[in-house]
């Protein structure tokens, strides 16, 4: 993975010094809260319902063992012994004191981490496919572009005060595991007819109260032109994006108001007029960055691996876990393990300090000391030998992280909701907990098959409910928490926005309603048909009828 050089380290240290000064001035009253707020946000610090929340950047979801141990230590020392992995591959602490922030940031800085630009109206932490570098279907490793974007977007002087937040995601494969079409900019690494590598560029996707699937603005952008093209997009947005209404300030609204064609024309015009060579990355720098993502020293392993095949045959529970939680690896004899942070009744994405230390130890022993965070709020050990899988699975079982539910009904995304979030209409976490408990039986989950449930506590859609096969949205109905159901959303290359199917359900009834939706699917599915495929075939009508009766 990427390691800081002196320059990266200097910039990180200087940022800590700057923020230490700003906190002092705030505490002395030299900065008003209104002035301080955007500064603290750009350092990752939010004011939540009960306390400050710190969001720490995990650039494109990649963590070293040293970093994960440090994150665990911080949970012990500054929080209540746990932390929360987010849908943007970051990690959050929920109980932070402002006075402690500078020291906390210094600790993070000692392991090349920070909270920079994890909030605020700036370019946020870039996200990528969690299987970067190990997926067999990859055209090029998205971590290279992601690291280049990380550096370019860090303290970019022109784009620190955008109309609204700005999120970029990169995928290197045709199968989209990074939800790029729901980002402000989505980059898909592709090859053109001449077999050159470049980017298919999407702009203006997003969740929130106006969910939009991104528009393709360029079918092929030559690889070396990435940064100048990003600047052109950002400059058009920075100049012309709406600043009068925060709900209309995302780039998706600018694309909609200008029309895709006019937006593209403006970006291309800006790009052509700019001095691209000044902005584009010199090839020598790309080569330097790329070297950090070279393959780890894999062993040559003959397949099939007998020990692994035997274990799979003899241990049904292990076989089931392999089926859902182990992703095919580009190197024979290896697998990429997804660690489920979704135990029945648990809080999606939460991990205790002990669990984080244990995962770090496993990564050190079995996965070249590297861990990934997924946008579905799970963790990944990217390089595990098939022969070691059984031992890894058993070790994960000891810390409650061995649930064989990746991609299944209990692998739920949920936003913090009313338990933490000041903007919430309703609680999300307890709904996720109820669903994962109701469907705890793994036979039942595996029978239901691939199904993504996503829950948001309000229309801001941090839980990505629009993109859930089943989406649940918390609303406020005369002071009471209610939940609406959407069906048919998807976050992959067949991105879709779910359809609201009818009136909401009370907190007592939502679980039963979700179960009815799933039962309806089970009744009407054809052989081998997943939930989303069945929904696409039959539409919402049968589900509505089951939930609301015939009209």
């Amino acid at each position, binding site marked *: 993975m990427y390691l800081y050089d002196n*320059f990266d380290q200097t910039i990180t240290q200087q940022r800590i010094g*700057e923020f230490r000064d700003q906190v002092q001035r705030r505490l002395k009253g030299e900065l008003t809260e209104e002035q301080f707020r955007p500064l603290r946000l750009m350092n990752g610090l939010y004011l939540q319902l009960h306390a400050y929340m710190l969001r720490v950047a995990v650039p494109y979801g990649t963590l070293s063992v040293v970093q994960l141990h440090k994150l665990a230590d911080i949970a012990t020392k500054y929080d209540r012994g746990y932390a929360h992995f987010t849908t943007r591959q970051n990690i959050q602490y929920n109980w932070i004191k402002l006075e402690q922030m500078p020291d906390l940031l210094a600790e993070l800085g000692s392991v090349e981490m920070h909270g920079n630009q994890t909030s605020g109206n700036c370019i946020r932490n870039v996200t990528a496919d969690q299987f970067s570098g190990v997926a067999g279907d990859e055209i090029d490793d998205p971590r290279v572009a992601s690291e280049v974007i990380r550096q370019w977007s860090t303290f970019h*002087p*022109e*784009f620190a*005060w955008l109309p609204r937040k700005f999120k970029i995601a990169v995928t290197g494969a045709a199968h989209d595991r990074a939800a790029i079409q729901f980002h402000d900019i989505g980059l898909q690494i592709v090859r053109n007819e001449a077999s050159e590598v470049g980017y298919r560029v999407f702009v203006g996707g997003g969740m929130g109260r106006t969910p939009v699937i991104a528009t393709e603005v360029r079918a092929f952008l030559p690889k070396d032109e990435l940064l100048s093209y990003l600047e052109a997009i950002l400059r058009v947005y920075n100049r012309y994006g709406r600043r009068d209404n925060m709900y209309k300030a995302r780039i998706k609204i600018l694309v909609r108001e200008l029309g895709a064609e006019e937006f593209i024309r403006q970006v291309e015009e800006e790009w052509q007029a700019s001095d691209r060579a000044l902005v584009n990355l*010199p090839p020598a720098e790309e080569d330097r960055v790329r070297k950090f993502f070279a393959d780890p020293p894999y062993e040559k392993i003959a397949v099939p691996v007998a020990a692994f095949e035997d274990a799979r045959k003899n241990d049904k529970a292990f076989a089931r876990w392999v089926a859902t939680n182990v992703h095919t690896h580009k190197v024979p004899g290896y697998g990429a393990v997804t660690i489920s942070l979704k135990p029945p009744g648990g809080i999606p994405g939460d991990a205790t300090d002990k669990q984080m230390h244990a995962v770090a130890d496993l990564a050190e022993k079995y996965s070249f000391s590297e861990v990934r965070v997924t946008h579905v709020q799970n963790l990944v050990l990217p390089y595990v030998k098939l022969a070691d899988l059984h031992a890894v699975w058993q070790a994960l079982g000891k810390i409650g992280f061995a649930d064989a539910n990746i991609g299944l009904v209990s692998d739920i995304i949920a936003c913090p909701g009313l338990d933490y979030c000041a903007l919430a209409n309703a609680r999300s976490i307890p709904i996720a907990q109820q669903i994962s408990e109701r469907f705890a039986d793994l036979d039942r989950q595996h029978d239901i098959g691939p199904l993504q449930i996503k829950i948001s506590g309000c229309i801001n859609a941090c839980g990505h409910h629009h993109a859930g096969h089943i989406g649940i949205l918390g609303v406020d109905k005369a002071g009471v928490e209610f939940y609406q159901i959407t069906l048919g959303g998807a976050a992959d290359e067949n991105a879709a926005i779910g359809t609201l199917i009818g009136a909401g359900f009370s907190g007592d009834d939502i679980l039963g309603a979700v179960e009815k939706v799933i039962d309806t699917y089970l009744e009407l599915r054809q052989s081998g048909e997943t939930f989303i495929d069945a929904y696409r075939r039959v539409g919402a009508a049968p589900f509505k009828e089951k939930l609301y009766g015939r009209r």
Partner: protein
Amino acid sequence: MAVVDRNGPIADSWKRLADDAPVPQGGSVIVSLARLKSDDNALFAAAKNVGVEFAGDVNLEEVLAYLPRLSLIVARLTTMRDGRPFSIGRLLRERHGYKGDLRAAGPFIPDQVLFLLRVGFTTFEVDEGFSIDALKRAVAAFTAWYQRSATPATPTVIELRHPGNK
């Protein structure tokens, strides 16, 4: 009101001229873009120095013809979070070759001055509460960056990593 540069307060003799005020002989006047457009000959003939002021919604095309004769451009941030002047700074410096004084006005804070400098601003119109101490610390807060500045004084990190590579 005071005017500062990166080092602190500086002397300033610019005067704002209301759109309906007569053009004074000599002196340095700041006018609106509308006044500049309607009255440019008289202004450049009478005043010693002419500056123009606008906000982030400006159509830069309308300014370009006057650039060689302008000695001051004031770009106003309407709020602290108004990022448009940051793009305008780079455009004026990098694309349109503006060499005169580029001044930021509005409710920005010292912590924002370093980025304003990096996108090409040179002076800053500030109110009395603006802390010069904080300004001095803020502009020195960083010594390295990944992106080229509009008026490059120091090389970027990328350039420093590859000294031979131009």
